[in-house]
Every structure is written in C-alpha cells, then in structure tokens.
C-alpha cells in the first residue's frame, strides 16, 4: 500500500494538523513503510468475518466496553474552576473561544 502526499494532506486536514511540504513527503514515505509491515494481518483468514465490528469482549476478559447511565454526577468532577483555569484563555469562570457564528461573508 503506497500513500501519496495528497492523501497525507487530506488526513492531516481531517486530523487538524498543519504540515510543511517536507513533512508531508516524509509522512507519505513513513506511512507507506508502516502499512507495508502491518499488511501482513491480511494473510490471516481463519475465523475472520470483517463485516462484523468485532467489539465483543473476548470470552476470557471480564469486560471490554463499559457503559454508565447518561446522568450528571457532580461528585465525579474535581473543582470546575480549576479545570477552567487550565484553559489557555478564560474569563469570568468561562473558557474563551474564537467566534464561530455570524462571521462576515
């Protein structure tokens, strides 16, 4: 599997990473090498049904996915103000972000 620089650029945009041209070329080369290595899993054909998502817990393991009810539990949170203060920008106890609505055309 060879990855092109165009594909790297697309993946970088999807994952919100700005890359230089040099880095784009390097990652195309690196990823092609890594995928060539991991492609050996395609040899495995026993017990394989790739249409199932396979997120079932192995028989032996106590659990793999754990869910809890979607209810607010304030006792799970440390002091909210401390979390807000970890933000690069905050004001009056609120995290500050750039305006995303109502921008000029």
């Amino acid at each position: 599997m060879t990855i092109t620089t165009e594909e790297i650029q697309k993946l970088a945009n999807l994952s919100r990473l700005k890359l230089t041209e040099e880095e784009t070329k390097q990652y195309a080369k690196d990823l092609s090498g890594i995928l060539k290595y991991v492609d050996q899993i395609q040899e495995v054909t026993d017990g394989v049904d790739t249409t199932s998502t396979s997120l079932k817990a192995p028989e032996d393991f106590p659990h793999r996915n754990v869910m809890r009810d979607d209810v607010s539990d304030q006792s799970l949170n440390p002091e909210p103000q401390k979390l807000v203060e970890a933000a690069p920008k905050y004001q009056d106890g609120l995290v500050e972000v750039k305006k995303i609505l109502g921008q000029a055309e």
Partner: protein
Amino acid sequence: MTIDLKTLTISSVREMFKNGTLTSEELVQAYLDQINMKDKDINAFREVFADAIEQAKKADGIRKNNSTEAGNMPFLGIPFAVKDNMLIEGKQAGASSKILENYVGAYDATVISKLKNAGAIFIGRLNMDEFAMGGSTENSAYGVTKNPNDLSRVAGGSSGGSAASVAMDAVLVTLGSDTGGSIRQPASYCGVVGLKPTYGRVSRHGLMAMGSSLDVIGPISKTVEEAEEIFNVISGQDRYDATTLSDADVQRMIEKTSNINLKKLRVGIVPELMNMGGINPAVLKNLNDSIEKLKSAGVEVKEVSLPHIKYSLAVYYVLMPAEVSSNMARFDSIKYGGKVEGKDLLGDYLNTRGELLGKEVRRRIILGTYVLSSGYHDAYYNKANIVRDLISADFKKAYEEVDVILTPTAPSPAFKMGQNSSDPVAMYLEDIFTVTANLIGIPAISIPSGFVEIDEVNDNGEKIKLPLGIQFMAPLCREDVLFEIGKKFKAVL
C-alpha cells in the same frame, strides 16, 4: 552520613526509619545530591519538586508524633518519582510535550492518591517519549534520557526516565505507564524490574490517555518484592475508571486458573517467536542461559505454540494509532496547555497541533486517522480486532499446558542514540515481545537477567556491560505467578 543508595529497598528503608538510623529527610537529601551530580548527564528528571524536603520532613513528623497513623502507612516517607503523564494536584504534568508546557494538574491521579494515603512522598516527575509514544525517550520535547550504563545509548522508553532514575540511584522507586512495553523495555535496558499489571487492575484515572484499551500504570524498582508491594497498594476498583476490575471480577478470573500450583510452576517458551529472526545473538544466548537456570531451580520448561503471535506487532500498530488519533483530539488549544493563534478557530487547531505536537505523535495521529477512515476501516481496524481475539485464544490454549510464558523483554540491548530514529518500523520492532500482553490484557514483568559485554570502553577505560531482561507473561489477574517466578529466578541468577 553516607548512605549506600545502591542496596536500598522499600523494606530496608522502612526498617531503618523504624529503628531510627535514617530519616526520610536524610534519604531525600541523598537522592537530591545524587540527582545534582548525575542528572546533567542522564536527563531522567523533567522536574525535581521544590517541596521534596518539605514532604519528607512532614513524613518524619508523622512517624515521630503519631505512631498509630504511621502504622497504617506502609510507604510513610518512601520517595517516589512518577512519569510526566500522571497528575499530581498542584504540580506540573506535561507528558514531555510542548503542547502541555506549564500545565498544572487539577487533581491527583488515583494511583497518586493511593500512594499518598500510604504515606509516600514525590520528589519529581520523569522524562518520557512525548505522550508515551516511542521506545527511547528520543521523542521527548526536552531531550533524550541516556542510559546510566552507557551514555551513548538510550534508556529505552517510553518510561525511560522512570527506569533510568531507579538505575542511577536517584530515587527509590517510580511509576511508569505501559501501552505496548513502555515499562518493561526501559526496565530491561536499564537493568531494573518493571511490572505491567493486568488491564483494569490499576486505575487509569489521572493518566494521560494514549491507547485506552491498552494503557496501564505499573511500578519500576530494583527488586520484585518492591514491585509486588507497590502493585498491592495501587491496584483496585476505582469509580473514576469504569474499566477497573472489582474484587469479585478478580476472584472470578483467578478461579479460572485455580489449577496453578505456585510451588510447581510450568514455564512455556515459544519457538515461533525465537525462530523468526531479527533477535540479537546476545539476547538469544541470555534467554537460553536463563532457561537453564530456571531448570536448575527445578522449574519445568516446555515449548508451547502461539500460531498468531507473529501478527501481534502489526495488530498493535493498527489499533494503537487508531486509539491515539481519538485520544489526541482533546488537544485543541481550547481546553488545556499551549496555543498558537490562527486567523480563525480552524487556524488555531491547525497551528497549535501542527507546531506543538512532535513528529512521532503527529505520525501516529495520521496513521490512526487512515486506518479508521471509511474504505480502510474494515481492512485494518476490524481485521486487527479479529486477529487480536485469535491471539487471545492462542494464549488461552497455551495456558492449559503452562502457567507462565517466557520471552526476552526486547530483541536487543539498549541501542545507540539516533540509531533507529530515521526508520519508524525499525523502532517499532523493539516492541515485538512486549505488545502482546497489552493486546490481550495479561500481566507481564521484566526481570534483569544479566549483562552483555560489548566491545567499547567507558570513560574509566572499563569494558561497557549492558543489562538484559527477560519477560514473564501470566494469565489474567495472575500477577502472583509473576512475583513467584520472578523471585525464584532472581534467586538463581
């Protein structure tokens, strides 16, 4: 007073504290002196905490004034240091990344609060590969941690600081985290003990996530006994980590392997792994010597077959980056740490993540995004999950015949700085023996197994000896088997 730091263990220190021949303050001062002297060369510490002596004095005060409270604190005054990806309230934690420079923990990780309750003190935080991604600490944004046995070589990674600091006698014991070998491989390179517990036995709350189905916290120490004691304190179910196992879960798992007789352990070796090539001859020889030593101690050693284990590393390098790409999405320049301004919100994202995340972190995010993208999801992510289950089934079968499986910890001794940095696949191959335990959740331990003398001399004109380690892997929740075989092996080493 001079303290022989090399021979200290938790139990010997506790004994000295108890009979009054040593105080925590004196011990911490000795470690701070050692750090001052050696860490300029090694670079194991990201930060030495300014209140280390203060914490020690407080512990000494409790011992002096409140014997009841002191009696309930097995680690009272015992100096720990932790990897830079675990939160201590009020202390910086940065995962050795520029994107978290100056970030301060808002709460204690569960492992930290458990250790604090046991009386432990924390003298510093330790260097690592950025966000635990790497096997050499060369991916730290703050410089590589060098190997105390040879300054031209790496300490291993990603918990390189955690292993090197114990090996250079700069702290008694440390915590690391292990996603694919990040506790065991540096322990092996530095000649110390490293334990990766069963997934879910130690809470991940307050640990910066890398691969959420793989990550686990564990101890690094000079002896198996210390690793066992620390594990006993930090393990247990935690309401802040839904994947932690309850006591009933653990009991149920142990019952499934109740046929194991700790006095008569059967050790399995895996020809498929040993014959695949790419293993340093000194490592193979050391493994064979170790097998002979075990046999001489009356341990039964036999071959077992694990037909899918050769795919472990490929499976790992699909699933781990997939989880990395999801976990790293939280670094968005809004919630924590650094920010590089752009012209709009998208520009903030692109600039911050592009400029403040290192090369390997970005490589894994892109790889993870690829294997999860539509069109490739089935061929990579789903396929890898299926093979993961097949590997798990192989081990289940093997554990019908043996109680514990033995491999080298790493395919080579510590390598030279820069040796693997231009080829990611060469670097990833260092994880070949360790990733399987993370994929299937089982516990594993790396134990020092001797040295290999290389054809180079150090500054004193002596031939350089590099440590080697062997790895034991036990069934789920059978850490007790690892401690037993580890002690047995060290006794005959």
